[in-house]
């Protein structure tokens, strides 16, 4: 009797996991169809909208990295620095050493990741606001470092005329490349999320001491999250360098770093697609409302405060909150 029950329990659990997997696969397929078929079909030939959507995809990709650091309970305001590093890696390799973009793109990610490793190892010991402040300072450091890089970084004049890869000649190509990158990013972060590593991350967010007491090497895990995040920032920056064909020390500022964070949190920190929803929503909506562009920052601010007060778990939690209200009313 006991055995059967246990058995059926296991069955139910594996069945649930399989259903969840199927669910996620379906969701991902829908996302892929949206980004690779529906959006390009809607906007083919419209360079402006393809650029806006491509920008949003790249910003979402970088935000996914930030989301990963959020998942270990760290407020990361350094992503602008890593985007800048990635941009410069590609710019320098492509313009001076004749690298093809497709070779320098992964290198940009790797180098940004390595810098993330070197910087992250000491600073990840900091928590809470200390970590937030130090990462914010890191964004500034990156700007100043490239500004004072002499002829190697071309100082304040930045690096211009970065050749655009022949495969990515049109706005549509660039958009598709960005969208594919984003989908890959979603898969990577989602893999982390559902794997045992993701469980460790969540445990660390609840309390690092607790996680450490369970024998988890928290230093290694939090470094892993930060390195992956930094690498993603680097890749996004490299891709932007190809889109813009230039990079300047001021290409990414503290504001950009804050925006990456904003996208994550606006979409929702519990969902992998949170940053994707957040960035597309904000960027696309504000392009549509170009008449009120003057009020953009004001609206960002109000939106942020209102969401924080009433939807602290992000926009994706809206259905849950609404159904919560309904249930309460029904009861």
């Amino acid at each position: 009797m006991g055995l059967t029950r246990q058995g059926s329990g296991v069955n139910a659990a594996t069945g649930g996991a399989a259903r969840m997997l199927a669910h996620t696969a379906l969701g991902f397929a829908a996302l892929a169809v949206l980004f690779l078929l529906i959006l390009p079909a809607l906007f083919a030939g419209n360079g402006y909208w393809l650029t806006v959507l491509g920008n949003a995809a790249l910003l979402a990709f970088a935000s996914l990295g930030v989301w990963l650091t959020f998942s270990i309970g760290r407020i990361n305001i350094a992503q602008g620095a890593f985007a800048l590093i990635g941009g410069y890696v590609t710019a320098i390799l492509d313009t001076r050493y004749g690298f093809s973009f497709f070779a320098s793109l992964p290198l940009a990610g790797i180098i940004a990741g390595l810098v993330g490793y070197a910087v992250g190892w000491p600073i990840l010991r900091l928590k809470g606001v200390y970590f937030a402040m130090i990462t914010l300072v890191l964004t500034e450091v990156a700007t100043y470092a490239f500004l004072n890089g002499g002829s190697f970084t071309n100082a304040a004049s930045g690096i211009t005329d970065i050749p655009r890869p022949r495969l990515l000649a049109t706005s549509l190509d660039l958009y598709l490349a960005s969208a594919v990158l984003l989908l890959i990013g979603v898969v990577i972060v989602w893999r982390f999320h559902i794997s045992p590593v993701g469980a460790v991350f969540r445990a660390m967010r609840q309390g690092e001491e607790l996680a450490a007491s369970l024998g988890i090497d928290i230093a290694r895990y939090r470094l892993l999250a930060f390195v992956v995040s930094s690498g993603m920032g680097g890749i996004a920056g490299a891709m932007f360098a190809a889109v813009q064909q230039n990079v300047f020390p001021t290409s990414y500022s503290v504001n950009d770093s804050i925006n990456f964070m904003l996208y994550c949190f606006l979409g929702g920190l519990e969902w992998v697609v949170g940053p994707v929803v957040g960035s597309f929503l904000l960027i696309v909506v504000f392009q549509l409302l170009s008449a009120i562009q003057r009020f953009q920052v004001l609206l960002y601010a109000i939106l942020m405060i209102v969401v924080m007060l009433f939807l602290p778990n992000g926009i994706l939690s809206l259905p849950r909150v609404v159904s919560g209200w309904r249930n309460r009313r029904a009861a």
Partner: protein
Amino acid sequence: MTQILIDGCVLSANYALIALGITLIFSIINLLNFAHGELFMVGAFMVYYVYGVFHLPFVAGLVVAALVTAVIGALFEKFFFAPVMRSSTREENSMLLAVGTALLLDSVALFAFGHEQRGVPDVIPGVMQIAGGFLPYQRLLVLVVSLVLVGVLLWFVQYTRPGRAMRALAQDRDAARLMGVNVERTSMLGFAIGAALAGLAGGLLVTVQGISAGAGPAISIKAFIMIMIGGAGVVGGALLGAVVLGFAESIGYSLLPGSETYLLIFVALILFLIIRPQGIMGHPWG
């Protein structure tokens, strides 16, 4: 050499006001006030209007600056931070909310005050020469008033009833409540005083540096640097952070006038935090 010393003193004294304000807020409600630089900016504009435009006494400008920023701080605490802190499960939430309030003040200021750089005439014109260094009376005024205000604040926190309540709150919120401290009112008061300090710092410095609506974020970053040096939530640490930053700037700029100075300050800061993550004075209040 004398000049470096003079500049360092003036900067340190004013930075102390900024650092004390942000530390006060941090220690009492455990919030990193991202909008601190924006409150500085609002205070500066108040002095600009009261003293610069309407030609009322400079002191009146400072009083208005303190009052307006205190009211903004109190309202933020009551309507934004208190509810979120009560309900939120994540530490991030209150900080993101603070970022939101900073953006809010930034953009409102742009509409209210315009985008132009503003300045006010000297309260006391003229320049004093000390041992080869130049000290305009205006800067001397900033130095003296800043020091007086720092003194008043320290006295207030140490010896008055609300000041003691704040310290109790900073040490242990629940214990303070049990001891009969009105936690809600004290939190609001703490936020208001912290905000007013930022406003006063801005109101004083506008006479030397002028102000524009976009000045906030740079000041906030300076405030962060100071509390990272000194240790968040520690009064002594805030003062120390202010002195270190003030002199780092005055020495750095005279040796390396470009942005290398800030690069070095940042790098030194990161190295320092690796060795001592809690800042120089790593334990809360008193």
